[in-house]
């Protein structure tokens, strides 16, 4: 993959993420705060971004969304094809609900 392809892909993913996040927050803020794992303050800032600002942010050379399972246990649970049906998914959901949210410093 050449450099400009990669930057194009990153921009597209950032744009999709930001626009989808805005859409979710406008539709149902509390559910979005849970699904995105962000603070309400951050959610408010995201919805207030104009199309121009979103476009500008998306054009960075880094991804704007971050891995939420920076925990070996959660990662293991989400990828396991365990013997106990879908219980690993529930275990992961319980752990994710207990994690701190992404918020503004």
């Amino acid at each position, binding site marked *: 993959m050449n450099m400009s392809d990669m930057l194009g892909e990153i921009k597209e993913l950032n744009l999709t993420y930001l626009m989808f996040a805005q859409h979710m927050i406008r539709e149902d803020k509390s559910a979005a705060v849970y699904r995105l794992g962000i603070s309400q303050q951050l959610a408010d800032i995201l919805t207030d971004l104009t199309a121009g600002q979103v476009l500008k942010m998306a054009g960075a050379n880094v991804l704007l969304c971050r891995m939420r399972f920076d925990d070996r246990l959660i990662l293991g649970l989400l990828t396991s094809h365990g013997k106990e049906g879908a219980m690993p998914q*529930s275990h992961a959901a319980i752990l994710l*609900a207990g994690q701190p949210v992404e918020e503004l410093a």
Partner: protein
Amino acid sequence: MRNKSVVHEGNEIRLAIDLIHLGARLQVLETETGLSRERLLKLYKEVKGESPSKGMLPFSADWFLSWQPNVHSSLFVDIYHYLIAHTELRGVHAMIKSYRLYLEHVHANSLEPILTLTRAWTLVRFLGSLLQTVPCTRCGGNFITHRQDLNRNYVCGLCRPPSRAGKSKKRMPEATHTAAPAA
């Protein structure tokens, strides 16, 4: 009481309808809305097309402690606590939203929704008096336990599942699903 606003009453009716759709029993509606029993009965029949089930609510706190119910109830309570901590939702509205998010999880993973809305509502009422959440010393997740229990070195049912865990009829719904189209 007489001069209640129409908007307020409209909101109460909408709340009652939401709760009925999610499967609430009449006692839940009576506690959470200011509507009279007669109106609630009428509303219930209109929404569900049948009379509400009679009898007492499930009141056992022990139900939340057996293995599978504990996992489901703990997830629900963790979502509830998350919403209380990070959003402006409170009371019955936080309860309804957490229950919806719990149902989503259940459907997304093709599990059975074994925690009913009435049970979820009971659970929220038990928190702080009979039940509490305690972090598992192995995974760090928060799980429901009895308040009176000694939970110093608590290990959750998922980190240390009982030997019979998950060996019930859990495979059944999948089996019937796959069998149905063939028939």
